[in-house]
């Protein structure tokens, strides 16, 4: 990922302008963007319902949240609401997946695309201090972190990007109505990079088992991952929570937890571009995003499919093509 060229403010202004215009003209009932959280170290989803509130919206490299998650929940309720939403490159891919599957109504959606140059891994940054971080500021290639005592540390931005931003091939939104700011340059080499997956795949089986057990032992089945997931849409009828029929065990142990996560992985396969929302939502820091990356790698290699790239593409498991790489095996 190239160093940020620092036009965050211009883009932020543009998002506000677009949101204001949409609200004033009544094109949307509310606009979902990003806003500052309980302190300046955090950016959280922000719902703006009137034009005078658009200045609450922010855009900076902490805006990790994939806001399309709220579409799957909000679109049917209230049924006729018109919604504006801001999407980064990866967010737009989940939106495209949802649109492909008729799960959001394009007619009632206003999408502001936000070209993205990489999001900071807030969890990693906030660990540089033992106590609470109150401010994270990105300036060029630097990240300035301030803790509650007013101490400041400087970090290299490059070292603290989210993993999937490092290997991102689609920094510009794949679908939008208006683009906030100029599109950023896309990597010339679009070959997907699976470094972290390949490293894992190369491990001995025993070691893989150990790492998996270690990771999933921690899971407390809080289901934050599936609540945060933009393309997981069974709502209250998730098979992992259903007791009739009882398809997945409810016990909390490494094996059952892994089973639950596997079900989730398979269920969102073909829709999930591994945006990382599950990963960031996990309170016990299980690297869930790797699971979905692995599935994406398989899809790419077996079926030459990348989720959410093109609105016209059919959901992968609803198509059959004898020319799939898989068919050649």
């Amino acid at each position: 990922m190239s160093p940020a060229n620092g036009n965050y403010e211009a883009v932020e202004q543009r998002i506000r302008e677009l949101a204001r215009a949409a609200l004033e003209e009544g094109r949307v009932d509310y606009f979902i963007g990003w806003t500052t959280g309980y302190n300046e170290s955090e950016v959280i989803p922000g719902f703006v319902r009137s034009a005078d509130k658009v200045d609450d919206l922010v855009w900076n490299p902490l805006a990790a949240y994939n806001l399309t998650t709220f579409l799957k929940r909000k679109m049917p309720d209230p049924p006729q609401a018109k919604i504006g939403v801001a999407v980064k490159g990866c967010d737009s891919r989940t939106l495209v997946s949802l649109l492909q599957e008729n799960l959001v109504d394009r007619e009632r959606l206003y999408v502001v695309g936000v070209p993205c140059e990489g999001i900071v891994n807030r969890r990693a940054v906030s660990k540089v201090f033992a106590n609470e971080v109150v401010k994270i500021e990105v300036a060029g290639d630097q990240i300035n972190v301030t803790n509650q005592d007013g101490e400041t540390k400087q970090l290299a931005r490059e070292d603290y990007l989210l993993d999937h931003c490092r290997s991102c091939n689609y920094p510009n939104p794949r679908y939008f109505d208006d683009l906030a700011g100029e599109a950023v340059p896309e990597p010339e080499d679009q070959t997907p990079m699976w470094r972290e997956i390949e490293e894992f795949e190369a491990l001995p089986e025993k070691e893989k088992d150990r790492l998996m057990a270690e990771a999933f032992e921690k899971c407390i089945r809080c289901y934050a991952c599936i609540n945060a997931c933009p393309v997981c849409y069974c709502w209250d009828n998730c098979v992992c929570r259903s007791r009739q029929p009882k398809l997945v065990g409810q016990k909390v142990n490494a094996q059952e937890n892994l089973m639950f996560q596997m079900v989730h992985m398979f269920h969102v396969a073909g829709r999930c571009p591994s945006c990382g929302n599950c990963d960031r939502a996990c309170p016990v820091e299980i690297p869930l995003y790797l699971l979905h990356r692995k599935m994406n790698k398989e899809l790419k290699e077996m079926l030459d499919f990348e989720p959410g790239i093109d609105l016209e593409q059919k959901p992968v498991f609803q198509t059959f093509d004898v020319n799939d790489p898989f068919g050649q095996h």
Partner: protein
Amino acid sequence: MRIGVFVCHCGTNIAATVDSEGIAARAGELKGVVHTEDIIYTCSEPGQHAIQRAIREKDLDRVVVAACSPHMHEVTFRRTVEGAGLNPYLFEMANIREHCSWIHADKPEGSEKAYDLIKMAVAKVRDLEPLYANEVEVNKDVLVIGGGVAGIQAALDLAEAGLKVTVVEKETTIGGTMAQLDKTFPTIDCSACILTPRMVDCSQHENIEIMAYSEIDRVQGYVGNFTVDIRKKASMVDWDKCIGCELCQQKCPAKAPDAFNEGIATTKAIYIPFPQAVPKRAAIQVDYCRWFQEGKCRVCERVCPADAIDYKQQDEYVQKEFGAIVVATGQDVFPWEEYYHEYGSGRIPDVISGLQYERMLNASGPTHGHVLRPSTMGQKDVEPEEPQTVVFIQCIGSRDESVGRPYCSNVCCMYTAKQAILTKDHVGMETEVYVFYIDIRAFGKGYEEFVKRAQTEFGVKYVRGRVSKLYEERGKVKVRGMDTLLGKQVEIDADLVVLASGITAADGASELAQRLNISYDQYGFFKESHPKLRPLETNTAGIFLAGACQAPKDIPTTVAQASGTAAKVLGLLAKDKLKTSPMIARVDQNRCVSCWKCIEVCPFGAPEKEELRDGSYKSHIIETVCQGCGICVATCPVNCIDLKGFGTQSVLDQIEEVLLT
């Protein structure tokens, strides 16, 4: 719950490797089982009586029969339990024959597995609920797609039985391929003489409506209630006015390729394919018409005594309702030019296809039945020559994997023998006639004798072997091949080479199959439901097959199949209401997220969008349309569709039973 378990011996079919008696006794320990019995032949009359007696005497409310495959006898035993007053869907079969005794050698092991299978069936039957068949009203009109001999025969049989039949034909006349033929094997009777009266019968029958120059646009609905959109193609001639006088064709100045004569002659831009066409109506081939291409002419309009020409005519769409559909769309001739480059790819004028030769032999064809060398035809100052040496090559686009046609086309051996005889008859006995063949397949009644006659009585020289190359040399076609019986190279200087082009699926067959939701094989032929036991039905209820659209067929087989299909349709439509299987999909609308994947994947059009009171739309299965195939169940991303009688829970119960107990 009072479950009865009946374990079959099937003579020694099962009992040789499974201890039927022992496992029947053990099954008594399973939860809910109150009666067990082992029976030598459960499907026999005493066997079925034993089940019924036990249901009555032991007051059973669920029945498990451990015997053969449900494919074999599920229907039988459902009837049995129904006969004793039980709901037929409170019954389950454990397949301990195909899945067990036939594939195991060790009796204790086989018995153990059989017991596991019975355990699973008992677990499933515990979960079953009574199901009730639906009834649906039946429309008694029949659609026949294709007006060849198959369609004509089916239509006549159905119309005679009193049903209203609509025949949709894509060409301007019915008759199909048979109308193009000269004589038919093995009797050498005139094809037109036996076909055209049937065509006329069709057009005059009060119960038959012929929609020529029309195609199927869309098919909706289900058995007993199909809604079909038919596109009447614009012929540029008002067929209500046209009297078929052929005046327009005579006066038309624009030449056009003659598809009916397989391209060995030309016709006019406005044309009637042949004199006995039914309906005998003219149509304009717009691509060749001077008015449409150059903006001047209108000769046909001027000469037409009926004022029938209508240059502004547009395609017209008609919607009709039917109870059953007969698909009789026939076949095409294998396009050998695209594949056989060693035979000149169609560039050698004296190498023609079997059907082209057929047109040449035909007295009403372009040469009036004279066999001529195409290279000498249609030239100034050249008298057309009769060929002195004619070579036939068999299996062109049949039994040839290199051109993707490994199947036998069924008719070529016989039509080649016929054409060889007719060559001798038309040109003279002194003509040299060679047939290169792989095998002679003369399987029908009188066929073998017919080929023998060609060889002995008419002196046709049969050479077993394949021709490797055809090329022109000094006004002849050099035929270079191998006589595999003599093990020698053969070279023949031929005047005319006739390639016995095989049968290939009709153009557009797969598109039609998709519109009809019927299956087709890798060659484009429509698939029957079962090759032996349901050869006339498709897997879509209410849609039947006749003729070569299913597989290459000769005329006798086609006609026999068409009549058989008519009987099937009559059997179906004899009822006023149809019972539908209750083992169908069911949507839990609370969970439905309205993604409509079920609608997209359903081959029958069973799921529909249902508007709920809150204005939202949810998936709903039309019970009478659903065939219970389960594809929507597997597709539904939120798992909100279940198959009645095959619920997720009952599958889990079975797995649990076999793994955990």
